[in-house]
């Protein structure tokens, strides 16, 4: 197959399209009357909604911590503190996504636009990692001094096993939920479902863009 042959084949396809491709003008005209948001802006409402709910939760837990500071168990205060800190980080990711949404210009060059869109989508995985990191505090917030004073060895052992396993699992997932593991069984089990497909695809696309950028950089530096 010569280079020209490929272009000739494409031209024959072009010719066929020219002869047989018909534009439905009425439907195209209808499109110019549709009132919708631009490409990426349609993602904004759900992000804003999540940020608002997140902020309400943060205000609620922070108020609890402040008001109960002198009376609550230190386990509750520390657990709630960690949980609310992780929630704040997750809100930060949503704010970052909002900035990316604002920056995406669909008529801008492909590489930069796709990088923003892929970053936007794949950053959702960070929220999941943070959510998993919260796991251990849900096993500690209810501890109190009376439990420690009146409990028995079995209760302590059970509690320690539960908290230790949740901590191990949370840290392990935090470090292992990444693109390189996307084909592992456990990964597919967690991210099973159509709603996760775009996230995985965007991670793959981000990898392609990184390769492109690396190649450009190495070409520039070798010049």
């Amino acid at each position, binding site marked *: *197959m010569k280079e020209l042959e*490929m272009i000739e084949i494409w031209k024959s*396809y072009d010719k066929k399209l020219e002869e047989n*491709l018909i534009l439905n003008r009425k439907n195209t005209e209808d499109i110019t009357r*549709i009132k919708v948001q631009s490409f990426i802006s349609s993602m904004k409402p759900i992000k804003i909604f999540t940020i608002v709910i997140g902020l309400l939760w943060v205000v609620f837990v922070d108020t609890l911590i402040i008001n109960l500071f002198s009376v609550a168990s230190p386990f509750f205060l520390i657990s709630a503190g960690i949980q609310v800190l992780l929630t704040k980080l997750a809100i930060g990711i949503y704010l970052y996504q909002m900035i990316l949404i604002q920056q995406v210009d669909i008529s801008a060059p492909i590489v930069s636009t796709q990088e923003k869109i892929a970053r936007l989508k794949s950053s959702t995985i960070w929220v999941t990692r943070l959510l998993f990191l919260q796991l251990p505090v849900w096993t500690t917030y209810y501890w109190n001094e009376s439990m420690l004073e009146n409990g028995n060895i079995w209760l302590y052992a059970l509690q320690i096993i539960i908290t230790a396993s949740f901590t191990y699992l949370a840290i392990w997932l935090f470090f292992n939920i990444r693109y390189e593991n996307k084909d592992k069984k456990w990964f597919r089990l967690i991210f099973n479902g159509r709603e996760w497909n775009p996230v995985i695809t965007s991670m793959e*696309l981000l990898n392609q863009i990184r390769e*492109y950028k690396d190649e450009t950089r190495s070409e520039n530096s070798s010049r």
Partner: protein
Amino acid sequence: MSLKRDAQTFLTVIEANKGIIYKIANSYCRNAEHRKDLIQEIILQLWLSFHHYDEKFKLTTWMYRIALNVSISFYRKENSRDQISQPLSDGILHLYEAENTSELDAEVDRLHRFIKELKEMDRAIMLLYLEENSQQEIAEILGLTVTNIATKISRIKLQLKQKFSNVKT
């Protein structure tokens, strides 16, 4: 002379460049039903962006950028398409297939299949190359350097030639 930004001018622009939209949508979407949605989405985004079209770029550069950006990111909407867009009952572009298929048609199909097997970004470069855009134009559409584009084109062409020769042997 500057371009009028009304619906009639837009229709003329789309009519004149409908092939670009069809070819890109066809290269990124295998499923015929989804392709209809993708074509509608591309035309919708072209319309929404039409008023901001910067005339310092060629009209086709603007069209290629939007059509490719929408097509490459179409995966994003797989689950939410129905909620966001308002699908029209009929498609916008209809291709009337000729009944008798020639040897050339088989070659076209093969080329299509090989292009669809390329990674998304490589596919964009190859489509622009086959459309006989200059390396400078491809670089502008992609946002890469001309040297970078030249290297990539020769690498992708080699890949395609290899695929063709594998079929023939």
